[in-house]
C-alpha cells in the first residue's frame, strides 16, 4: 500500500532561476499566491451563480410587483396585483393540475421501473456494457425530438399505438383530446428519456450493497423476492431520495415535451396539457407580453417547488430514521 506515487517520468515543472536580490519580493508574491489562488479558482462559479442564478431569482420578485412589458419595459408599481390576477385565471389552475398530474405519472412509474430494471441488470450478464448502453440510449435524444416522435406515435386518428390497440380488439384512446390520456402520453416521453439514466444510478447503488448481507439472508432462508424487498430496496433509500429530489425539481418545470405535443404549443384545445412553465411563457412572450405576470407565475412555482421539497425531505427523513437498515457499511455519502 505504501508505494510511492511521485515517480513522474518527466519533471513537469521547470525550476525557476533564483535571483538573490528578488527573493523577498518573490516570497511575498508566493505567499499571496497561496492565499488568494484558492478563492480565485472557485470564484467563476460564485460570480456566475450570483449573476445568472441568484440575482434573477431575487429580481423576479421585483418584476412581479410591477407592470412590465416585454418591449415597453418597467411600468408602475402594482403591489400584488399580478399575483391576484394570475390566481384568478382558470388557466393557471388548469396548468397547476396538469403539471402535478404529469409529474406524478412520470416520476412514480419511472422510479419503480428503474429499480426493477436495475435489478435485472444486476445479474451476471454477458455483454454487460451493451445492455447498459442500450437502456441509456434515449438519454441522448433531445426532448424536442422525443416529443415529436411520440406525438406521432400517440396520434388520435392515425397513431401507431391506437392502431396496435385496435388490432388486439381494443378501442382507440384519445391521446390528445382527453385530459388524463394526454398526461399519460407526455409522462411516457419523460419516462422514455429518463428511465435508463435512473436505472444506471440504481444499478450502481445496488452494486455497492455489501454482498455479505445477501449471504446472511440466504442463510436465514430468505427467497430472492424477500432479499429484494428487505435488503436491496432499503439499502437504496439514499439513492431514491436523490432521484426523487432531482426529478421533482425538473418535473415541476416541465416545458419541452408538452410544448411540442402538437404544432400549436398551447397545451391543447382545452388546455388539457398546459403546464405552469408553458403558462409562464405564454404570459411573458405570448400575446400579453406581460413580464410582471410571468414573474408572478415564476415566483409561485418557485414556492411550490420549495414546499414540495420540504415535504419530500420530511417524509424521507422520517422513513430513514424509523427503519434505517443496520449494516457494517455507511449507507449514506
Amino acid at each position, binding site marked *: 500500500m505504501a*508505494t*510511492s*506515487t*511521485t515517480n513522474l517520468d518527466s519533471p*513537469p*515543472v521547470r*525550476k*525557476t532561476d533564483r535571483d538573490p536580490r528578488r527573493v523577498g519580493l518573490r516570497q511575498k508574491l508566493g505567499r499571496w499566491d497561496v492565499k488568494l*489562488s*484558492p*478563492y480565485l*479558482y*472557485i470564484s*467563476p*462559479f*460564485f460570480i456566475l451563480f450570483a449573476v*445568472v*442564478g441568484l*440575482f*434573477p*431569482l431575487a*429580481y*423576479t420578485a421585483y*418584476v412581479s410587483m410591477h407592470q412590465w412589458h416585454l418591449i415597453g419595459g418597467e411600468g408602475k408599481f402594482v403591489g400584488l396585483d399580478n399575483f391576484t390576477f394570475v390566481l384568478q385565471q382558470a388557466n393557471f389552475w388548469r396548468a397547476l393540475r396538469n403539471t402535478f398530474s404529469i409529474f406524478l405519472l412520470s416520476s412514480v412509474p419511472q422510479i419503480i421501473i428503474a429499480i426493477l430494471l436495475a435489478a*435485472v441488470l444486476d445479474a451476471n*450478464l454477458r455483454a*454487460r456494457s451493451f445492455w447498459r*448502453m*442500450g437502456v*441509456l440510449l434515449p*438519454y*441522448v*435524444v*433531445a426532448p424536442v*425530438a422525443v416529443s*415529436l*416522435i411520440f406525438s*406521432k*406515435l400517440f396520434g388520435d386518428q*392515425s397513431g*401507431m399505438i391506437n392502431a396496435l390497440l385496435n388490432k388486439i380488439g381494443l378501442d382507440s384512446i384519445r391521446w390528445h383530446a382527453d385530459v388524463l390520456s394526454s398526461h399519460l402520453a407526455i409522462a411516457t416521453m419523460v419516462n*422514455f428519456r429518463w428511465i*435508463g439514466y435512473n436505472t*444506471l*444510478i*440504481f444499478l*450502481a*447503488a445496488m*452494486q455497492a450493497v455489501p454482498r455479505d448481507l445477501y449471504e446472511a439472508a440466504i442463510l436465514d432462508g430468505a427467497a430472492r423476492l424477500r432479499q429484494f424487498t428487505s435488503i436491496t430496496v432499503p439499502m437504496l433509500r439514499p439513492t431514491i431520495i*436523490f432521484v426523487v429530489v432531482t426529478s421533482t*425539481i425538473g418535473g415541476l*418545470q416541465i416545458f*419541452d415535451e408538452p410544448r411540442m405535443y402538437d*404544432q400549436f*404549443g398551447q397545451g391543447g384545445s382545452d388546455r388539457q396539457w398546459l403546464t405552469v*412553465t408553458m403558462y409562464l411563457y405564454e404570459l*411573458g412572450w405570448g400575446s400579453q407580453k406581460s413580464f410582471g405576470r410571468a414573474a408572478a407565475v*415564476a*415566483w409561485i412555482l418557485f414556492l411550490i*417547488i420549495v414546499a414540495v421539497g420540504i415535504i419530500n425531505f420530511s417524509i424521507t427523513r422520517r422513513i430513514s430514521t424509523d427503519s434505517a437498515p443496520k449494516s457494517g457499511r455507511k449507507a449514506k455519502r
Partner: protein
Amino acid sequence: MSAPSIPVIRQTAGRGAARAAARRRHHATGAGSDRRAGWITYVILVVVLLLSAYPLYFAFLLASSNAGAIAQTPIPSLLPHGEFFDNVRRVLASDIQFWKAFRNSVIVAVVTSASVVLFSTLAGFSFAKLRFRGRGPLLIFVIATMAVPTQLGIVPLFIVMSKLGWIGQLTAVIVPGTVTAFGVFWMTQYLEAALPYELIEAARVDGASMIQTFYHVALPAARPAASMLALFTFVGSWTTFFWPFIVLGSTNPTLPVAVQLLQSTYFKDMSLIMAGVTLSVVPLVIAFVFAGRQLVAGIMQGAVKG
C-alpha cells in the same frame, strides 16, 4: 475492455483512485452474482432495448417515406422506403436554416463543454486539495445551489440579456452555462480521491506557482473525470430547448429550436419533420456508439459517490 491494471491506476491517478477502481472491478466481475442470468433476463433486456431504440427507428422510417404512405399506414413497415435523402434535401432547402442551426449547436456545445471542464476542474482542485478559510461551507453552498430551480429566473435573465443586446446571440446561451455546480462537485469528488498530496507538494517544492501546479499536476490527473464531464455537458447543451428557444428565436436557432420551427411551419408534412428530427438526433447517436460506455461509467460513478 482495455482498462488499466490497478497498480497502473495507483501510479498514475493515486491511491484513492486505485482503491475505488479495485472496488469497482470487484463488483464488475460479479462478486455475489453467483447466479448466472437466465434466458428470461435476456428476453426482458431485449424487449427493453427494442423499446428504447424503436422510437428512433420509427422516426427514420417516417423520414424515408412520404405523406401519402404515412397517412395510409399508421403502423409503418419494418423496412425503410427509399425517400430518405429526398426528404433530407427538402429539410436542408426549407426555411429553418438547418446548417446555421447545426453550426450554432456545435459552437454552443463545444464552447460550453470546454469552459465547464476548465472552470470546474479549477474549482474542484481548489476545493479538494487547497486549504483556505470557509472551504467547507462554500462547498456545501455549491452543492445546495443544485437544488435551486434557476430556470425560474428567466424573466430577469431575459431583461439582462436584452440590456446587453444579446437577444438572438449565441453568447446569451453560452455565458449562463460556462460553469455548473454539478461540474464543480463532480471534479471535487474525483480529485479528492485521485490526486495525491505528494504530487502537489513535489511540484511546490520545485518552485511551481499555484497555477503551474494546477496545469502540470491537477489537470493531467483530472483527465478521466474531465472527459466524462465534457460528455455530459455536451449532451445537455445539445438537447436543451427552453432557454435557447426564448432568447435566440428563429433567426439564429440551435438545432432543437430549428426542429421546433419545422413542426410549426410544415406540420402537415410528417416525413419532412421526421427527416429533421433524424438529422438532429443522428450526431449524438453516433457519438453515443463511441462514447456511450463512458457515459454509463460516469453515471454509475457519480451515483456511488453522489
